């Protein structure tokens, strides 16, 4: 039973590790801001889910540890999507252009970043 549990935990942790690394790479490398938000929000919900569930398998059934892991997971699952949503919304409201990929590439190449909101997002 314990071996099985640890095997499951190991698999979950491994999957979590893969998700975390890919998430980090994607947050760094995705072309536009909104796509990065997407990468981050997937990363921030899936990675805690996998890793904390994996850790729960190593908790030896200790009740206090399981409760805390559950609370952390609950808070993270509640707050991470909300922060991502609020962030994307604030950026959109703040006038960060949702322009096409090439457009943004050009913008960043010209070193202007997002400093000139030339195209207003149509609300």
């Amino acid at each position, binding site marked *: 039973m314990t071996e099985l549990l640890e095997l499951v935990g190991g698999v979950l942790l491994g999957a979590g590790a893969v998700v975390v690394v890919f998430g980090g790479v994607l947050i760094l490398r995705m072309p536009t801001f909104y796509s990065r938000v997407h990468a981050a929000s997937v990363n921030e919900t899936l990675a805690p889910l996998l890793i904390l569930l994996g850790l729960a398998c190593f908790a030896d059934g200790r009740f206090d540890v399981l409760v805390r892991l559950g609370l952390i997971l609950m*808070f993270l699952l*509640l*707050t991470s999507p*909300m922060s991502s*949503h*609020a962030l994307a*919304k*604030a950026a959109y*409201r703040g006038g960060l252009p949702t322009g096409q990929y090439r457009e943004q590439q050009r913008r960043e190449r010209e070193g202007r970043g997002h400093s000139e909101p030339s195209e207003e997002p149509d609300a």
Partner: protein
Amino acid sequence: MTLDVLAVVLMLFLLVTAWGVLRLRDLFSAAMLLGMFSLVSAALFTIFDAVDVAFTEASVGAGISTILMLATLGLTTERETSCPAWRPVPLLAVLVTGGLLIYGTLDMPSFGDPQSPVHTYLGARYLEEEPKEIGVPNVVTAVLASYRGYDTLGEATVVFAAAIGVLLLLSDRREERDRSSARALKDHLARDDARHAPAMKNRILRVSARPMIPSILLFGLYVQFHGDYGPGGGFQAGVIMAAGVVLFALVFGLERTRRTFSANLLEAMIALGVLLYGSVGVWSMLAGGNFLDYDVLLHDPKHGQHLGIVLVELGVGITVTAVMIALFLLFAARGLDDAKGDLHLENGAS
């Protein structure tokens, strides 16, 4: 081995983040990077087994102080003014001060030296005698609240004094007592909340923040009263509870928060906490012991110690909570004052 690597990597993060803070001209981003710096140092403290310190760093450094810094930036400017590249006097001052500080550390025992006074008798004394004398599982709490109760009283008083200073500088009590201007301020707060905060109109944020706020307050209470058994205590709990109230203010508006936490209530709470702390000391004197000697509070010295620690931590918690909420509300409302002109202008035009 793994932990050493972990610590080294985290220290590298600290260095890179600090460099980023220095490099950025955008103060807003710099404040956020400082929050990240605090997170990393809190993680380092955890790895070094200083869990209570990590708790404080996480709640104060990464939480409240970042929020207060952001609120302050709202009052000033968000760009750092560029200064001339070569200014010898400040450079000299920094070099001399830094040199003196480094010179001062030369007298300290070297890191991890087993012969240093802390390791020869003090730490061992606390660890060996604490279960017999106080019997609180978390020795750090016992040291802070009982053995070093004077120091903690001093810290609570410092927080109290600092809060009084800020209140004197920033609060508008006279204006608030004047009935009509109080209403004006209230209207102004409400209007500003409505105008400037899309966050409050965001239904998703409101719905999902609603369960968070009581959870944070409950967790703060847990940290407050579980401080005897695990990491935590009055300071951390106060900051966490204040963060819950700040979240409420951020999502539901300053005006509603003001309605619950009026200036009168906050000032009373600020004083009450320190008063409670001092009263425990006076009580122990009346019961025949020394100031802050909890042994005499109850028939059994250990029970007396437990009671004293709980009361003292409660006092610290009340003061810190009230101070943090008051600071946030003052700074946030102050930011609105500056915008008053714009608002009136706009209303006149429309």
